[in-house]
């Protein structure tokens, strides 16, 4: 195993338009778990399919350690890459039993007899499906199919495991269970994993690194904590975690983490000068006396709390939480404890 390197990777399709993937450079460390996060159509699936070998880059290259997997002129066929993938549709072969599905990569590699059976049993045990070896995929639930697909990845010890929105078709309860399974799988196999998703909560919960993409470009790569606390630019700020982006007059210094004093100063200055984008997380907006006056625009009861949208005096809206019930139109006073300049 070695690290996976994407070097200035680009992909344009013959249909024209802007490139699906545009100049993406990225290094996934050996044994890392990278989440590729972005809205649908941002090119994240195309990146994944290029890594798998289903698409050829039109520019740039993909390397696994020293070995060039693909560039614009040549590529290694998917069947010779020693990778595995969990597809959004799971891609289980309906005419084979669960054990046959899981054992197929071994069968193709010429592993047979007792050795193959043992490996299949181990893989099925790892996803807790020992008793399902002889079932057909059609007889399984969505979560079980997902685990069969995962077992199929486990069985050959691949260098890289690719996951294409694997939880998109599952309900909320199953998602949590499967997230746990993925984490376990990663810890156990030590494989480099690349996980495509449009769900930022999923990405943060699973990955050791998150790469945010938009319109074919890579915006930021960082740990989940880093990307939540210090997002780069408006797009990443809007995509990761809850929050509102305020447009405020440019502060005098270039400090990026702003406290209430700094914010108060910015909010007090009016004028048509240059502005900065400032990300405010709802948990940092506190209802407190001696704050800024704010009008309640909407209230949503979420069970453990109320989610509010508040209008500040200059008309911009922020999100906030409240333990107490409030009504639309109420006048509150709020303090913004902390904010991040994008």
């Amino acid at each position: 195993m070695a690290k996976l390197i994407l070097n200035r990777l680009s992909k344009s399709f013959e249909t024209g338009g802007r490139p699906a993937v545009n100049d993406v450079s990225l290094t996934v460390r050996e044994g890392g778990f990278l989440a590729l996060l972005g809205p649908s159509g941002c090119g994240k699936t195309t990146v994944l399919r290029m890594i798998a070998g289903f698409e050829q880059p039109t520019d740039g290259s993909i390397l696994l350690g020293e070995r060039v997997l693909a560039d614009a002129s040549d590529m290694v066929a998917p069947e010779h890459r020693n990778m595995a993938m969990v597809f959004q549709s799971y891609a289980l072969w309906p005419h084979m039993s669960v054990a046959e599905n899981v054992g197929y990569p071994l069968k193709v590699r010429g592993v047979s007899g007792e050795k193959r059976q043992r490996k299949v049993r181990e893989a099925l045990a790892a996803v807790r499906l020992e008793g399902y070896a002889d079932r057909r995929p059609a007889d399984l639930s969505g979560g079980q199919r997902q685990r069969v697909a995962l077992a199929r990845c486990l069985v050959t010890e691949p260098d890289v495991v690719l996951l294409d929105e694997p939880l998109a078709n599952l309900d909320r309860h199953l998602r949590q269970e499967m997230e746990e399974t993925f984490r376990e799988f990663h810890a156990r196999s030590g494989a480099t994993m690349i996980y495509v998703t449009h769900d930022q909560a999923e990405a943060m919960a699973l990955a050791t690194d998150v790469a945010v993409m938009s319109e074919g470009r890579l915006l930021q790569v960082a740990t989940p904590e880093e990307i939540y606390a210090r997002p780069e630019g408006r797009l990443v700020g809007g995509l990761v975690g809850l929050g509102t982006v305020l447009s405020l007059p440019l502060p005098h210094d270039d400090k990026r983490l702003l406290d209430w004093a700094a914010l108060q100063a910015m909010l007090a200055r009016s004028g048509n000068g240059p502005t900065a984008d400032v990300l405010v997380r709802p948990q940092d907006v506190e209802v407190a006396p001696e704050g800024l006056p704010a009008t309640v625009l909407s209230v949503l009861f979420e069970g453990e709390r109320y989610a509010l949208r508040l209008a500040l005096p200059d008309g911009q809206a922020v999100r906030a939480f409240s333990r107490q019930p409030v009504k639309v139109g109420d006048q509150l006073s709020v303090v913004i404890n902390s904010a991040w300049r994008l």
Partner: protein
Amino acid sequence: MTRASHRGNSQPRWLFPFVITVIFFLSALPLGRLAVTGIASATGGGARQMLGDPGLWQAVYNTLTTSFFGMIAAVVLGGGFALLLTLFDIRGKTALGFLFMLPTMIPPQVTALSWIGMTGPSSTLLKAIGMAPPLGSPQPLYSIGGIALLYGVQNAPLVYLSLRAGLLALPRDGVEAARLAGASSWQVLKDVILPLSLPGFTAGAAIAFVSCVGNFGIPAILGIPASIYTLPTLIYSKFASFGPGTFGDVSLLSALIGILSIVGLAVEERVLRGRDYRVIGLSGQVAVFRLGSWRWPAELGLWLTIFVILFMPLTALIASSLAPAYGVPLNTSTATLHAYREILFRQAVTRTAFTNSIGLSLATAFGLLVVTVLTGYFLVRGKSRFTRVISALAEIPYALPGIVLAVAFILLFAAPIPVIGVSIYGTIWIILIAYFSSFFAVSLKPVVSAFRQVDPSLEEAARLAGAGFSRRLRDILVPLVAPAAGASVILVFLIACNELTISALLWSAGTQTLGVAIYNLDDSGSFNLASALSVLVVIMVVAMMLALELMAKRLPKGVVPWRS
């Protein structure tokens, strides 16, 4: 090991040349040869002489009138059935639909024979019930009207299918919205459903017209005795009186049929283009209207029609096959299985025909399957810009009337094949190659729709598992398309076994097919033997249709032609 090509493509390198070669030999080469001969004789002196022949213009006129009236009859019959069975709460829809589809799968010469057995002075059936017209009175079906009527019966299912496909694609929510807007059932039908189903009507009518233009079996049996020639039967008679100018003449005649067909197909293509964009919203489930007190009369009418166009002719056919000789009255004491014994055990000609037809059909069905699985894979998964041209070229030989294709293959193989110097003209091989060409589209269609249904990720998963192309084909793709492949085999077998038009021109002593045998038996006056052979053919057709019907649930939509 199969090396994948360098582009990010799943196909081995040999696949594209393979598909191109197949398409070239089965479609481009014969059609090109026909075009070359046609153009050569059109620019030569033969054309003027040919065009000055009043017989030619009479045949064109006959073809157009029979086809036009046949089309009208098909539209009335097929349209009525499609509207009633799709939109209204008729009981026994499946049975009615299946029975209505039967005539199109029964070979045309058998249809013609059975209707002759039902009408006219020597009808065994009419005699048995004492209703036969006096001897010497004319057989009413030996006329333009008779040919057109049978064209209508034979091709009504084509209109039915086309219209029904359109009706099933209607948006249910559109109908419901019209209802909520206050429209009555009648207004919904008149203002929403009929306007939206017009393309289905037009397309069905166009296909029916093309099918009539190319029909050989019906005018051969009904027209030739009364000296009514259509273009296909004129070609046949030109070959019967073979002369030095025959090749030039028939290639010109084929070109005429080809042009008429292309006009019809262009109309169909035009009205169906954009059908995908037209209907928005939920479709697939059609609102059913209640007929109320009209249900009984409507059902009675439908069953009566089935009785007249299907049961009566088939009963007449059976009656004729049981009669000891043509014209002898049939009753319990004269009924005999003599004709069956004769064709099954005594006549070498019919036994050869059985062997030839079944052998040819099996070879065509299974041989084509190998080719079409690879071609279908190429067409569905391929990113080649030739995909459209290739699928069009694959479709043309089947869309063209069989007689045109037969002429093309005669022209191609009349001389010994260059390089190897062997002549296959007059052997069974020329029929086999022509079948391959003609039924390529029939075999391809189910396979292509099955491949389209296979989620590409199933194959991608196999690639990542390490399986090369031949391995994936064996382990993943073929098992997944197997039901459709089975349907493809049965369909090709069914159509090839009943085929007359191609073999009528290509057969020679010892290579006659079932279609040819029936036609020759009738031509030589052995009406009861022809009828008995026809009965056996009908039984075979029904059996295979039932087999497909039983498979239908496991097949992709649109594979079984009479289900939609």
